[in-house]
């Protein structure tokens, strides 16, 4: 559900420092009309510009390069500002749990900007994955206990799933028996930053959500191809747990839809950055006495990329609106993730190719986004998986008719 104009209007004024003058940046967007996304209110776009401005400032490539070499993978000071000053972590958390009461459209705008700036930090694991799991599945008392500190950024959670490939495999490895959690999750995102592990595990009544502290888990950090997103193996051996709440039918897939859609936003943000920077490069790089942007084969390739990217953006934003309560197809998250994955990868490949040799070097920044694209391709379901799931859902829909 998209909030009313009034509701939104309070937001930037209340929390945004004056330096992030939103009007100023809205102007930039209007000058570059084609880059502008529609289907958003003016306030939403202003909000996005605030986020963009913040990340331009706080997450330049130099910072990304520094943080990706650290074990923690984020800058606690920036995390502090991000939560306290700009208030991004509570965006989608209802006001009764200490958040701002916006929805997934606004969260998506943040994810898009974070993807664009390759923000290093546990935003996706805590605000997107864990907070949405709690919002969906935890009982009221646990929401009240957990969400306010997540919204305030004083606590960082991560969601422990035993598959990042598809929701169908969830609860196979992580099991709760007699109130004790055991099993191993092969890939957990940003656990190193978390003080609370939210675990989705199987039990006698199906899947349920549990909270565990890091010291109750055996955490083995893993080398991730995309060093800006930390991964680890997490194992539990008979850890006593109490359920935060049970996963009702459909909730696990809804959570997956939400995560995949937010990831799609992140991906189109990254793709936009690479596309724009590549076009800029093509306007200055000279070979054979002319800018390489003047070669028709390359111009047409860019037109093809733009088409692919525009389609992915349109679908991703539509999926966000659908999940926020708007009109749309139940399988729009599947379409969004499939299109966004492929568009990001297409753009990332060409971002290297069109730069030539320099694009393959470590010191040029393109590979940082390329690795995010490559890694996100399989994160939360490949394009092929999402397409198959889309058809299944269409079949279910048609069976009901």
């Amino acid at each position: 559900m998209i909030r009313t104009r009034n509701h939104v209007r309070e937001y930037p004024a209340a929390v945004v420092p004056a330096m992030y003058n939103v009007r100023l940046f809205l102007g930039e967007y209007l000058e570059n009309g084609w880059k502008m996304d529609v289907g958003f209110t003016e306030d939403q776009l202003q909000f996005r510009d605030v986020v963009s401005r913040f990340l331009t400032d706080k997450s330049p490539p130099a910072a990304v390069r520094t943080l990706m070499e650290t074990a923690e993978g984020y800058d606690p000071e920036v995390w502090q500002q991000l939560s306290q000053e700009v208030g991004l972590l509570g965006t989608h958390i209802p006001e009764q749990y200490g958040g701002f009461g916006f929805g997934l459209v606004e969260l998506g705008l943040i994810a898009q900007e974070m993807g664009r700036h390759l923000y290093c930090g546990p935003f996706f694991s805590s605000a997107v994955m864990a907070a949405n799991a709690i919002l969906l599945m935890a009982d009221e008392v646990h929401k009240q206990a957990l969400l306010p500190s997540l919204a305030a950024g004083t606590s960082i959670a991560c969601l422990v799933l035993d598959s990042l490939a598809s929701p169908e495999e969830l609860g196979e490895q992580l099991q709760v028996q007699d109130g004790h959690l055991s099993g191993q999750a092969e890939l957990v995102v940003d656990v190193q930053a978390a003080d609370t592990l939210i675990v989705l595990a199987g039990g006698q009544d199906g899947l349920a959500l549990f909270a565990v502290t890091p010291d109750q888990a055996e955490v083995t950090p893993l080398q991730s191809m995309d060093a800006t997103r930390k991964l680890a193996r997490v194992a539990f051996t008979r850890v006593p747990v109490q359920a935060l709440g049970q996963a009702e039918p459909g909730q696990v897939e809804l959570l997956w839809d939400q995560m995949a859609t937010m990831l799609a936003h992140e991906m189109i943000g990254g793709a936009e950055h690479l596309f724009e920077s590549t076009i800029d490069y093509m306007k200055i790089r000279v070979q054979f006495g002319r800018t390489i942007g003047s070669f028709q084969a390359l111009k047409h390739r860019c037109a093809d990329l733009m088409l692919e990217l525009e389609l992915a953006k349109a679908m991703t934003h539509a999926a966000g609106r659908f999940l926020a309560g708007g009109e749309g197809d139940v399988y729009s998250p599947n379409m969004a993730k499939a299109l966004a994955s492929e568009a990001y990868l297409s753009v990332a490949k060409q971002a290297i190719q069109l730069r030539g040799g320099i694009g393959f070097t470590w010191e040029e920044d393109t590979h940082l986004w390329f690795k995010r694209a490559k890694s996100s391709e399989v994160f939360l379901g490949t394009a092929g998986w999402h397409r198959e799931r889309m058809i299944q859902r269409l079949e279910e829909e048609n069976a009901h008719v």
Partner: protein
Amino acid sequence: MSDHPQIAVQDIKAEVDAWLQENWSTDLDLGVWRDRLVEGGWAAPAWPEEFYGRNYSPEQAAAVAQAFDAHGAVGVAQGGPGKLASHTILVHGNQAQKEKYLRPILTGEHAWCQLFSEPGSGSDLAGLTTKAEKHGDKWIINGQKVWNTSAHHADYGILVARTDWDVPKHQGISYFLINMRQPGVEVRPLRQMNGHASFNEVFMVDAEVLAEDLLGAEGEGWKIAATTLSAERQGFGGDRSGGRVKDLAGPIYAQYRQELAVALEPYTWYPQRAGRVDLAWPRAAATGALGDPLVRQELAKLLAMKKAADLAALSAEQKCRTGQTNVIPEGSIGKLAASVIARQASHVHTLVSGTDAMLTGADSPMDGLIAEILVSVPAISIAGGTDEIQKNIIAERVLQLPKEPRFDTGPFRDVPRNVADV
């Protein structure tokens, strides 16, 4: 045409309703009714008051159309080229031309066609070589045009021809209104690979145009053609449904249906050209092809692209409305998307049909409709501006990449052109 009258939509509807109560009858002859429509000032409400209109805004004009539709009343004559002609004449014509040509277009008395493309100049329309030479008070036209929808039953044509060969190519073109019913004009149907003949070739050998039928000034043809083309891109030529009234019962409706049938005949295969995405799911489900994992993947790709393109088109429309964008680049992305989607649809239809895709006509799936898709889709990436032209537009106008080096900026006489051309 700004300064629209300050009348509320509901007042307009009421006024139309009252007028229709008075004037409309299903027993009228279509010609009689159209005359009455024009006299009554409801034929073209968005046009100036001087010419059958009321200077209405688009919203106000839409209200009139809605009232007509609600009442079951027939409107003015359909037919794409006529609309393009009237729009262009309205913008660039002189008083005499407007008086002579506009009314018969509205009543359906005159059918028009567009004489722009040539065999030697397709993507490069401004490279046209049809020649117009002034002899006394007449222009003598020689040359060949192609892709002329409706030319075989047109009374008049909007024509661009070269009047000056010693200036750069865009500057030597003039815009004419040509009478198609004359000995110097020969129209031949042009059959396409899908069996339809929805276009024509038009051969002009010493065809004549009166001096007074030059539209605008000599040498201004390219600028005026831009008005026509822009109207075409904005869909002025595209409203071909005929509305719900075409299905009603009554003598005038029969006449209207006949008029429509003639005007719309060239367009029957257009939906197939776009791939008929709507048929993909139902056929995959009905034939059992949905059990094939590969069909599922290809179908999902198709449906996702189509949905995304529809969403992107909606968003482009919103941008246009709020003035955030020029229609052309966004249209180019949409047109490119349509090509990709149509090709993918053809692929899916082929996979779903299996070896039945080897057949055509009544022996083949859906009475030949699927086969028509397979042999019509190649047109989508050519007609109305090739994919290549769209990509140029996107790269140069949207992404602001450098323009192609040009080899055709000098006097047209010296520009290399196709051997077959004059």
